[in-house]
């Protein structure tokens, strides 16, 4: 994409525009000057009512004006400018795709749903005022229900930024069962960080009592971390010189904030990143392919609108992989409940249908297409991804 070409073309446009603008103003000044001259001449003639003199001056004026014909000059300026503008437009049309809505399917996007999605996106990004303003303008009072959980989350994040872990700890303890179920040790990390804070700012005694109160009950689960924390006690006041200096680094706060957000969102049943931004990013990845596909299928326009599955894959990066999708290498079809993937003894995986086909309906052993190991249908096990 030759941005330089476009910028050059635009520089030419801007130069022409400046030129045209200044020349026009110059023309105006010239006309004005001529007329003023004529006025002065008229005022300076002694014979006030002599017609021929007056006429002469006026005729002179007219001739002068026609001489440098401002209208023609104006026209030429405008024509030049239009030509340059036209060239620039051509350059943009060549470099950019002029109509990206060609691949748009004529399905109606229910505006209420879209508005709700947008409102929840705003709340998730922490833009609460904007969200409220949007809801009132779009007249969607139901979307306000999404506000409260995110308000809470941002409140906690704000306090964490100010190095106050109390709200976070409250949340973690109230959701400790859920966290344990999901294998997250958020609570432990919060306690660790709090401990280090107390140790630095407060006395050893308080730190010790803190550990006793919060970490002792679950000591068996934290066999690795508690000794470390105890070790820190020895270096109280000189923690940056101890082997545990890394506990002081500010990254921990950021990482913990991220992890907290992650756990909070998944507790709510929401994704970590705003779903709208994921969907739009996927769209930006995939739109060029769709446009190409549409132009190829342009002949059979009907099929484009009505198809159930895309004929070509859209290449999305790893960030967009949310599901395990198995595609049988033989049939090039996705695995499903009726056609599950099967593992053969040699370690290769095919779909059930292709195995059945290969073995001529489960009668005799067949050779794996990848490696020449024989296998029979009974030896293949179904896989669950």
């Amino acid at each position, binding site marked *: 994409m030759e*941005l330089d070409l476009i910028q050059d073309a635009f520089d030419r446009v*801007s130069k022409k*525009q400046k030129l045209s*603008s200044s020349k*026009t103003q110059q*023309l*105006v*000044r010239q*006309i*004005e000057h001529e*007329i003023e001259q004529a*006025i002065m001449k*008229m005022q300076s003639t002694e014979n006030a009512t002599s017609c021929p003199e007056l006429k002469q001056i006026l*005729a002179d004026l*007219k001739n002068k004006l026609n001489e440098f014909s*401002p*209208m023609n000059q*104006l026209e030429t300026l405008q024509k030049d400018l239009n030509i340059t*503008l036209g060239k620039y437009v051509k350059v*943009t049309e060549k470099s*950019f795709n*002029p*109509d990206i*809505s060609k691949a*748009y*399917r004529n*399905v109606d996007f229910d505006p209420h*749903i*879209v508005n*709700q*999605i947008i409102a929840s996106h705003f709340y998730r990004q922490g*833009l609460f005022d904007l969200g409220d*303003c949007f809801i009132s303008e*779009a007249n969607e009072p139901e979307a306000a229900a999404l506000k409260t959980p995110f308000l809470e989350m941002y409140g906690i994040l704000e306090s964490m930024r100010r190095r106050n872990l109390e709200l976070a700890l409250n949340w973690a303890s109230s959701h400790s069962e859920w966290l344990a179920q999901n294998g997250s040790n958020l609570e432990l990390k919060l306690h660790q960080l709090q401990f280090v804070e107390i140790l630095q700012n407060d006395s050893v005694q308080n730190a010790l009592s803190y550990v006793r109160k919060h970490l002792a009950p679950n000591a068996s689960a934290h066999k690795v971390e508690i000794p470390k924390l105890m070790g820190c006690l020895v270096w109280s006041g000189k923690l940056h010189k101890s082997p545990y200096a890394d506990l002081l680094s500010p990254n921990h706060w950021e990482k913990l904030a991220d992890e907290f957000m992650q756990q909070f969102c998944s507790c709510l049943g*929401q994704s970590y990143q705003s*779903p709208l931004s*994921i*969907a739009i*990013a996927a*769209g*930006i*990845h*995939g739109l060029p392919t*769709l446009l190409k596909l549409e132009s190829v299928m342009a002949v059979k326009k009907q099929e484009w609108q009505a198809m*159930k*599955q*895309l004929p070509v894959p859209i290449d*999305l990066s790893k960030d967009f992989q949310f599901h395990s*999708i198995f*595609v049988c290498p033989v049939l090039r079809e996705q695995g499903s409940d009726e056609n599950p993937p099967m593992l053969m003894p040699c*370690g290769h*995986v095919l779909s059930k249908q292709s195995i059945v086909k*290969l073995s001529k309906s489960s009668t005799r052993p067949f050779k794996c*297409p*990848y490696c*020449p190991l024989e296998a029979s249908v009974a030896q293949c*096990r179904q*896989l*669950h*991804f």
Partner: protein
Amino acid sequence: MKLFFDGKRKSGTQNLGSFLAHQCVAFGEKKASSQGGQARERRTWGRLLLGSPYEADGGPRQTGVRTLQSGDPNGIAAYVRARPMEEAARPGAPYPLARALRPPFLASASRSPPMVSRCLFRRGIDGYPCDQALRSSASRFPCLDDDHHYLSISPAMDMAVDMAIDAAPNGDASAAAPAVAAAHTSTARLAQIAESLKLEHQLVRVPLEHLKKTIRSNYRLAEREFTAVLNSVAEASGSSDSRSMDETLTRLSSLVTRLQGLKRKLEEGGKVENVQVQRCRARLEHLGSVADADKLDDWKDARLNRILVDYLLRMSYYDSAKNLAETADIQELADIDVFFEAKRVIESLRNKDLAPALVWCAENKPRLKKSKSKLEFQLRLQEFIELVRANEHMKAIFYARRYLAPWAATNMKEMQRVVTTLAFRHNTECSIYKVCQKFSSPHKDHSLDKVTASGIEVDFVEFLLGDSSVLFEPTQWDYLVEQFKQEFCRLFGMTNEPLLNIYLQAGLTALKTPLCYKEACSKEDPLSQEGFRKLAEPLPFSKLHHSKLVCYISKKPMDHENPPLVLPNGHVYSTKALEEMSRQNDGRITCPRTGEVCNFTELVKAFIS
């Protein structure tokens, strides 16, 4: 060379490397004998597989031979991985290794799928050659070879080539590979960014159209004033009757003031033009700034916000749009002032006032005509209907004669439909009066039970007026607003649909799989949300040609650097996650979904392409 070929003939075909070599030999022999250029063919194959065949020092060639002999898939993959990059990177490299691995050439000597034409592969060569070429061949020809149960090596090739080309750097790769592979991913990313820039036509076109409009209006202003001044001067000098000096002086000085006024206006207009030029330039620079890798995330956020602002403006939520533009600091990139012009017209239309809309049409007449727009006609029709509704029939008729007649040629049918309303209003004295009453009210439901006229007449009326009743509805105004918005967007070079809808549709199509609609869908997937699911219902599913697996435990992809392992109960997880679990539990693995316990040693590796 001879060493290579002779050595390989004897080995069995149990492993990939030797299988490969075996096939080369089989084909090489066949081709050589058919063409008679034995030495040439061997040189070619040598070069293909091992690079320069004439190295006497036994360097790369010998190691290459040893690698291929070993049959170790990782080694071969590493070897294959290293070569195509180098070959492709060398300018003028005639026979990239990747091309050598095409299935038809290496298929078993027995009946193999038809030879794919050279052009198919050549087309696939640019970019990552073997991948696409192989996939296109595989999709074209059936892979199941009934007689021999040997696939034409394509899945194997896919595996080797995928390992070589697709995967990110592997731990046991040769040193050259990681650097080259990293370069590959960043070039891919740059290419992807360049593609996405091509979609930004609207960003660049709209300020340009705005600039053109300002230039045009300034020009017309100057033109008008100049003509007036020159005509006035010409008239004054040309007139035969005598005028007093005072009169002429006043006239001339009035011209001077007029010109001074013009000067001021042109100055202001020039300033506006400059601002708009600056805006165009700022946008081009913004597009250029995407090359700056540090600020890429900010750029992407700005893009999302731009898309949202565009949607908000099109739906006429002006305050939110302004708010968002300020918060996200994208004022130069958003077309808020362009839409403010539209705001005036839209609000007046909502208030059932057609005047600003008609003024706008008059201002943009030439361009609307070029795009064959019917907006003005529809606005005039609405005005006519309003006159009819207000019972001002004579006015309505004159109005129609003046304004609707010019459009009659192209829009006869619609005009007839509308004018019919007038015709029937005239007969209000007769028994159809009640019918007309019903028609003039906004209710669509017009039951005719109170009519006293004969049934036939009523039917006739209903037949003729059936469609027209809708013209009296208040929804007609909404329809006009929509039409105006569409014309407006078209004139400024904007897309017909809001950008948000376009991108959202594309994204949902790309993400949509049948698994998204099941309960077990991961919450990270946007399609797990109810709203997105509803929106995505009428859209097609996406398609994949290769398996893409995600570990249930770690949510990371399971590919060649993190291969899948199978538990005895058939569930599959990634190696890394299972290793971690076994480390923490003394070598025992607990399946997270069924709870069964087994040992790490009982796990089996699965090979998935």
